[in-house]
C-alpha cells in the first residue's frame, strides 16, 4: 500500500507539473466538482486514488462515484491529469433555489420586490427584468416591472428559475367625497377615488363596493366622530368625519292633500333639528325640530317642496281664498221674531259653516239662518273655516194673538146711525193688513172705498153711494197682523130714520134710543095732550 501511495504521489507531482497550465485558468466549478470524485469538498490524493482505481474502465450509471472526470466516457490518464491539476483545491457546494416571495403566480405591482432565497450565496446572478441586489443567500429583484404578465427568469451559477407573476399598477388614494372632516349622516355614502383599481380593500366601518377606481363605503355609521380606515393592497388611509343623526320628517300639519287658505301656515315636525331647509313657496322658519312655512300661497294647486340636508318632501295642497264676513241682515241688536231669517254675506263662498241656533242654508256667498229661535236674547255664533263671529239679537215672544177692534165710529149692532155719514173708521189693537168693504145686508158691496193701513181701517163714501135711512149694513173684511194672525170683521149697523124737519113723536119706549142716543142735538117738546 505504501508503495502504491508513493507511486501516486510521484505521479501526482509529475502530473502537477504537466497540468500547471490548467490551474492558472479560471476554474469552472463544474470541473472542480468533477475532480472532487469522492465529493468530500476537497481535491486531493484520495480523488487520484479513485481515478487510478478505475483506469481503463468505462463508468456505469450505478456507480456511487464518477472517476470519468472529463466526461469522455473512459477513465484514463486525462482524468488523472485533471484531478492532479486541482490537487489542494476546495470545492464549494452547488447553490440551490429555496423559495421566492411573493410566491409565483401571485399578483405584484410594478414597483414590488421579489425576494429569492437560496441555500447558499448564489453567484453569477442575472435576471431578465428588474434590478438585482444580493445579500447573503438572498436575491432581491426590484421593479419597475412592466404591467401585465411577467415571466421573470433568474439565472445563477448553479441553475436558473423562471418565475411567473401578474404585474399590476399600484393604486394610490386620490380623493374622498364628501371631503374629509366634513359632516355625515349615518346612512351617507363615502366615495373614495384611486388612480388605479385598488385590491384587497377592507374598511373599518360600513359596507364597501368597488367599481373600477372607485370604492363606495355605505353606512350606517355610528353617530359621533368617525375615523374610517380603508386599507388596500397598496396602502391605507384614515378619513375623519363627524357623523350626526339623520333628520327625518315626522309629521305635517295640516296633512298633505287637504285644503288650506292663502295665509295659512304649514308646520313640519322633524325628529331632530333640520339643516339647510329650503321651501319652494312661502317663507320657512326653523325653530328646533319644527319648520313653519307661512304663506301667502297662490290660490289653486300647491305642490310645496321642502328640502333639508337629509332629504326632501313634496306636499300637495289646494289653496283657496280666505273668506271674510261682509254684512248681516237684519242689523245686530235688533229685534227678531222666532221664525225670522238672518242673512250673512261673505266676500267668497264660506266653507265648513256651523251655527249654534237655527237652520242654515248656503247659497254662493250668502248664509241664511232661519228660526225658530228661542225667545229672549239670542247670541248667534256663526263659525266658518276662516273665522267665527257672534251676533246678538232680541227674539220676541211669538205673536199668537189676533188683532182686535178697539174702537170705531160705528160698533157692531149700532142702530140709528146717521145715514148722512160719509166716513166710517175702525181702530185695531195692532198694525194690520187686509181688506174692508161696506156691504148690504144681502152681502152686496155698497161701493164705498175701503182702506186698511197701520192700525186703522176706513170706509169712505163714494158720491152717489150714500147710506139709506133705516137700512141694515154690514162692514165686512179680514185683517191680519205681522205674525199672520187673522181677524174677520163683521159689523152690522142700522141707519136712523130720515128726519125731514117734521117733529117726530117719541114715546117712553123709544125715548132712550131716539133722544139719548141721537148723535144730533135734539129738542124735546114736552107737551100736554088735550
Amino acid at each position, binding site marked *: 500500500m505504501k508503495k502504491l501511495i508513493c507511486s501516486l504521489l510521484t505521479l501526482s507531482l509529475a502530473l502537477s507539473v504537466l497540468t500547471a497550465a490548467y490551474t492558472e485558468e479560471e476554474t469552472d466549478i463544474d470541473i472542480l466538482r468533477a475532480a472532487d470524485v469522492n465529493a468530500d469538498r476537497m481535491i486531493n490524493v484520495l480523488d487520484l486514488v479513485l481515478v487510478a482505481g478505475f483506469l481503463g474502465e468505462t463508468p456505469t450509471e450505478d456507480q456511487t462515484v464518477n472517476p470519468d472526470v472529463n466526461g469522455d466516457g473512459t477513465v484514463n490518464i486525462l482524468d488523472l491529469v485533471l484531478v492532479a491539476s486541482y490537487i489542494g483545491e476546495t470545492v464549494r457546494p452547488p447553490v440551490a433555489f429555496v423559495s421566492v416571495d411573493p410566491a409565483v403566480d401571485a399578483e405584484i405591482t410594478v414597483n414590488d420586490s421579489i425576494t429569492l432565497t437560496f441555500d447558499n450565496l448564489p453567484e453569477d446572478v442575472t435576471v431578465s427584468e428588474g434590478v438585482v441586489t444580493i445579500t447573503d443567500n438572498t436575491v432581491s429583484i426590484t421593479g419597475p416591472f412592466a404591467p401585465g404578465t411577467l415571466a421573470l427568469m433568474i439565472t445563477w451559477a448553479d441553475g436558473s428559475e423562471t418565475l411567473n407573476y401578474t404585474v399590476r399598477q399600484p393604486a394610490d388614494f386620490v380623493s374622498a367625497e364628501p371631503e374629509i372632516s366634513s359632516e355625515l349622516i349615518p346612512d351617507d355614502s363615502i366615495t373614495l377615488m384611486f388612480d388605479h383599481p385598488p385590491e384587497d380593500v377592507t374598511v373599518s366601518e360600513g359596507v364597501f363596493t368597488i367599481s373600477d377606481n372607485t370604492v363606495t363605503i355605505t353606512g350606517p355609521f355610528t353617530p359621533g366622530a368617525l375615523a374610517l380606515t380603508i386599507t388596500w393592497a397598496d396602502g391605507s388611509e384614515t378619513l375623519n368625519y363627524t357623523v350626526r343623526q339623520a333628520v327625518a320628517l315626522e309629521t305635517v300639519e295640516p296633512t298633505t292633500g287637504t285644503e288650506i287658505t292663502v295665509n295659512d301656515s304649514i308646520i313640519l315636525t322633524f325628529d331632530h333639528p333640520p339643516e339647510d331647509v329650503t321651501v319652494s313657496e312661502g317663507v320657512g322658519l326653523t325653530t328646533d325640530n319644527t319648520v313653519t312655512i307661512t304663506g301667502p300661497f297662490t290660490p289653486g294647486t300647491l305642490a310645496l317642496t321642502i328640502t333639508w340636508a337629509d332629504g326632501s318632501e313634496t306636499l300637495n295642497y289646494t289653496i283657496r281664498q280666505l273668506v271674510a264676513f261682509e254684512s248681516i241682515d237684519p242689523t245686530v241688536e235688533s229685534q227678531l221674531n222666532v221664525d225670522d231669517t238672518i242673512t250673512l254675506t261673505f266676500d267668497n263662498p264660506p266653507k265648513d259653516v256651523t251655527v249654534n241656533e237655527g237652520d242654515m242654508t248656503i247659497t254662493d256667498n250668502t248664509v241664511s239662518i232661519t228660526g225658530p229661535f228661542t225667545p229672549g236674547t239670542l247670541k248667534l255664533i256663526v263659525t266658518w273655516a276662516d273665522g267665527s263671529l257672534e251676533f246678538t239679537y232680541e227674539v220676541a215672544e211669538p205673536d199668537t194673538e189676533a188683532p182686535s177692534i178697539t174702537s170705531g165710529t160705528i160698533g157692531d149692532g149700532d142702530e140709528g146711525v146717521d145715514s148722512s155719514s160719509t166716513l166710517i173708521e175702525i181702530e185695531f189693537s195692532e198694525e194690520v193688513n187686509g181688506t174692508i168693504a161696506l156691504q148690504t145686508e144681502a152681502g152686496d158691496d155698497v161701493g164705498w172705498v175701503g182702506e186698511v193701513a197701520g192700525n186703522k181701517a176706513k170706509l169712505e163714501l163714494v158720491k152717489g153711494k150714500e147710506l139709506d135711512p133705516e137700512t141694515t149694513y154690514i162692514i165686512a173684511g179680514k185683517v191680519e197682523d205681522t205674525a199672520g194672525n187673522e181677524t174677520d170683521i163683521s159689523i152690522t149697523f142700522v141707519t136712523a130714520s130720515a128726519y125731514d124737519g*117734521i117733529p117726530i113723536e117719541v114715546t117712553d119706549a123709544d125715548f132712550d134710543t131716539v133722544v139719548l142716543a141721537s148723535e144730533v142735538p135734539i129738542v124735546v117738546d*114736552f107737551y100736554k095732550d088735550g
Partner: protein
Amino acid sequence: MAPVVAEIALEYKDTFIVAKFNAIKYPEISQKYQVRGHPSYLVFQGGELVKRFGGQTPKAEFVQNVLNAIDVEGN
C-alpha cells in the same frame, strides 16, 4: 105745538131735531126730567140734557136758547 116750533123745526132741521113727547101720557119720563110745566123744551145732546126752557117763547129766543146750549160743529 106752537106753530113757531114747527117752523123752527123745519128751518133748523140740519142743526137739530125737534121731537114731541106726550108728558101726560108718559109721566115717568116727565118726572125723571122734572118737567112741571107745559110746554117745556128740553135740549139733549150726546145723551145729556144740556138745556131746558119753557113757555111761549119767541122764535128768536127759542132758537137762541137751543143754539147756545148745543155744541154745533163749526161754532
